[in-house]
């Protein structure tokens, strides 16, 4: 057992693919968290709740539209918008009062918001486990490296890099993206040159939460949509953001890759201790580089 057993290229190849697709979901969710951390300096613990709302909305929308392929694609488009709407309301009524408070206050506040949103989800969707299915063409698996790879995972594998490139283009090539980055560095200066910082912040917050919703909608076909999803993701998301460098988009990508790959290879090498691997990787990274792998904007 264990390391003594030789591992075929089949096993290594399929673990690599699975690990990468896991990393892509984590990246989409954590890039939103990282964006909000970078621009607004808010450690948003409720990010996981928005991810959960994204998944539940995807379920409702796809069921409302008959559950077919069309329903699925529309759910993928609309669910993040539902989350964006929720986060817009939260930002305009609650968060905008709190930007100047210290981090501990914000941490407690977003923690409270996570509990409230969790209960609202229970009131709205109930406690049942929900599930949606990917369109027929994305069901089942194909053989790659002689091992079965779920088609949907391959789809995620393609989508992840697209989101990363899109994010890079957005924050480097568009005006609003540049303003958001500037506000991250010096919000008073941005205000001084006549830009309405309040709305920049609102936009940045909603955009980050949109990504949480997108992550939730994307993950929905692969897991059971249930209460408690928020807790599962938020711990991992914060670890990833921390090892990648707070507020750094590429850091989120690197952190997600480390997390996803250590997990999937850990499972292959020492399945009984697989849970430990990603966390051990986090510890090693943080001992080596306490501020994260890439430059933190904090």
């Amino acid at each position, binding site marked *: *057992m264990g390391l003594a057993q030789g*591992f*075929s290229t*089949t*096993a290594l190849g*399929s*673990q690599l693919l*699975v*690990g990468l*697709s*896991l990393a892509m*979901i984590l990246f989409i969710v954590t890039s939103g968290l990282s964006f909000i951390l970078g621009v607004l300096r808010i450690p948003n613990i409720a990010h996981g709740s928005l991810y959960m709302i994204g998944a539940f909305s995807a379920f409702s929308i796809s069921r409302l539209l008959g559950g077919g392929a069309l329903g699925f694609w529309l759910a993928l488009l609309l669910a993040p918008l539902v989350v964006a709407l929720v986060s817009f309301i939260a930002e*305009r*009524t*609650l968060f*905008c*009062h709190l*930007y*100047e408070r210290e981090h501990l206050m914000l941490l407690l506040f977003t923690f409270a918001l996570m509990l409230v949103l*969790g*209960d609202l989800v*229970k009131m709205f969707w109930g*406690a*049942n*486990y*929900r*599930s949606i*299915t990917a369109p027929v063409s994305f*069901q*089942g*698996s194909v053989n790659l490296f002689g*091992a*079965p790879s*779920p088609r*949907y*995972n391959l789809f995620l594998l393609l989508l992840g890099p697209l989101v990363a490139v899109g994010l890079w283009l957005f924050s480097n090539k568009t005006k609003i993206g540049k303003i958001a980055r500037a506000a991250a560095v010096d*919000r*008073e200066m941005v*205000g001084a040159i006549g830009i309405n*910082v*309040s709305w920049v*912040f609102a936009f940045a917050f909603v955009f980050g939460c949109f990504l949480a919703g997108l992550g939730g909608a994307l*993950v929905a076909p*692969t*897991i*059971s949509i*249930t*209460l*408690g*999803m928020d807790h*599962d*993701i938020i711990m991992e998301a914060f670890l990833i953001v921390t090892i990648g460098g707070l507020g750094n988009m590429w850091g989120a990508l690197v952190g997600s890759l480390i997390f996803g790959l250590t*997990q*999937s290879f850990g*499972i*292959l090498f020492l*399945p*009984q201790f*697989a*849970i430990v691997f990603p966390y051990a990787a986090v510890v090693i990274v943080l001992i080596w580089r306490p501020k994260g792998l890439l430059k933190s904007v904090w």
Partner: protein
Amino acid sequence: MAGKMCTMRQRGLLTGCILALSFVVLSLILLPAHADARNIKVGIIDCYSGPPAVYARDALNGFKLALKEINKKGVLGRKIEYTTRDTKFKVGIALNMAKELVMRDHVDVLAGTINSGAALAVSENVAMPNKVPFMVWISKSENITGKKGNRYAFSTGENTAMAGKAGGVALAKRPYVKYWIAGDDYEYGHAIGRAAWQNLKALKPDVKVIGESWWKPGEPNLTPYITAILSAKPDAVIFCTGGRSMTNIMKEIKATGMAKKVPIWIHTGIDYGVDKPLGLHGPVGVMGTTDYLFYYPESPENKAFDKAYEAAYGDHPGFASFHGYITARFIARAFTKAGSLDKEKFIDALEGLKVKSPVGGEIEMRACDHQAVLPEYFGITAMSPKHKFLIAKDITTLTGAEVMPSCAEIMKVRGK
């Protein structure tokens, strides 16, 4: 900068919201409690938040349905009433809530919970010292009525020893030799794996484990585990998953086409609560076990129970609903037989008591260990023309006597 982020109007809105909220909270606190007419009081502690809430709600619904019938006639000229407390799946909260129900609300019987740790803690630290009977209705740890069993603890549901034995007996009849065992890394997962393996090994000594993998309960991404298991090429796989991990593992089995490549047994793989959310997209050909199916046996009693439950809650009863239902019947019958509200007399009456089962026949509360004698159904997931979700086919029934540890075995583990 402070204050510039929002307009005054938004600030007014916020103040309004806070005022309205505090009014609601205050009025809830200050509402007068109903006068006590000394009905029979059942205090329920269970997890009504987070993923386990679905089973806790099922149990409560089954319990309420039975109470509706029972309270029409009453018990000893009284009604049975209940009060619930949310444990949030935490042992500490469960203990505090149970203590509060006993000390302040003076409940006659405690009931709950889905969390095995909480059930054991309440059994040993609240029920036993305060001499209050405790009916465990969902959690499946065999220790509740086994090693840690006591005079005040009763179980109205199957346990890991029974489920594991049902799986082990069924697998022993099949030709597989090399097994992989994988599951949720918590008490339930390991207990079910242990029980299945011990029974399988005893009946078929040449079987061997070629590997194990354990993930955190509720782990959302199980694909890497499955691909790793498949590359080890076992003859069969035993999955020891519970709760929401069940939906996750069933989805992954379907997505990777695993059920077509290797035989799989998962306790509760044929359970309605597991197969319903998957609809017709669940994996066909997975072996599973459960102690309740609303469509089997096809007795008139079971059909009537299903119909009544569906009329009341708009859904078929799951195994937890069944447990909740028989719990209420056990409580009512035991008080009637005891002839008083005395707790010790209630326990004496409950030992060996038989109640009508909603599936037909009778269910006995075994006197020696306080475990309800329930059968286990073994079947394989399949499509059904009648339902929009997978059901079990080729069902075989193992009676309670066949799957339960004997009274002598129980006394041995209790060290008596």
